[in-house]
């Protein structure tokens, strides 16, 4: 009798342990059912026109208050577009949008002083509002990770956004 109870308890403990452990071990295979389903949902809803969001980051700037968001989209034909939204900076002379090869733009202007490589995207179209800039084909965005609103005349950074994987 006692043995049966012991065995039963042991079995129950094992079963309970299994119930808790099984999900911890198994990697839900999203790659199969759910993922397929989500992929379909995503294909239906999001990829109709084929634009893909690659990177995004928020602007910050102290001396010249800069705010808004920078996002890099890839269009169906592979073209990369940088879009500024909710954007605001101070107006100034000869202001450009550039990409800088830095890991981090938190050091504000320092990334301009060193010999960091730059990619020019064009003159700033306006100091307020939504705007798009084409990124030259072949630009390595894992390397050029910082968007800078850059006053060429005074070599000053108005504001910068670090692009993070979307």
């Amino acid at each position: 009798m006692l043995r049966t109870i012991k065995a039963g308890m042991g079995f129950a403990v094992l079963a309970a342990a299994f119930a808790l452990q099984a999900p911890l071990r198994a990697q839900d295979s999203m790659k199969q059912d759910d993922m397929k389903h989500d992929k379909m949902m995503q294909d239906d809803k999001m990829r109709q026109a084929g634009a893909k969001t690659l990177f995004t980051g928020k602007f910050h700037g102290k001396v010249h208050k800069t705010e808004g968001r920078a996002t890099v989209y890839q269009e169906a034909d592979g073209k990369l577009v940088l879009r500024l939204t909710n954007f605001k900076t101070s107006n100034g002379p000869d202001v450009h949008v550039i990409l800088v090869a830095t890991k981090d733009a938190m050091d504000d202007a320092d990334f301009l002083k060193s010999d960091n490589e730059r990619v020019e995207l064009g003159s700033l179209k306006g100091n307020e509002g939504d705007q798009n800039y084409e990124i030259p084909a072949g630009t390595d965005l894992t390397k050029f990770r910082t968007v800078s609103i850059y006053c060429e005349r005074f070599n000053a950074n108005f504001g910068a956004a670090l692009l993070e994987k979307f």
Partner: protein
Amino acid sequence: MTTEKSWLSRNKWLLVVIGVPVLVGAWWAFRPEKLFINQKVNEAAPAALSGEPEALYTGKLEGSLHQTSGRATIYNTADGKRYLRLSDFTTSNGPDVHVLLVRSDDKALNQEIIKDKLDSVELGSLKGNQGDQNYGLPAAVDLNQYQAVVIYCERFHAIFGVARLEKF
């Protein structure tokens, strides 16, 4: 005194010749009027984005005890439905894990195990601990208030990961 005055008045043209270019140069360099004049633009989104769900909020998922990473983004579809999408997502697998929306100022978010009841909006059971996935949002959710996405193990009241949403 009189001679000095007369020299200046005799050479007024010199002041003009030097002063005007200096002023023009300074104006060109600094463009001070731009301090007061804004140049507004309003370009449309890239054509490929039109008609696609619009991203409203986004945030990065973080969790240390149960390592969680990825991005949570809330989209608004053309017909006005909102949904949460997790992308690049990884968390640890566990029993009875759910996706919730919580007030971003909720102090419970700083805890790893919740003692009290969590004020939250349920979005459903986590579909998978890895991979891209979508969750529909109830129509009534106020996203100005519920601005944190939480991956929550209901059985052990454990927070696996949190993403604080920011305006996209």
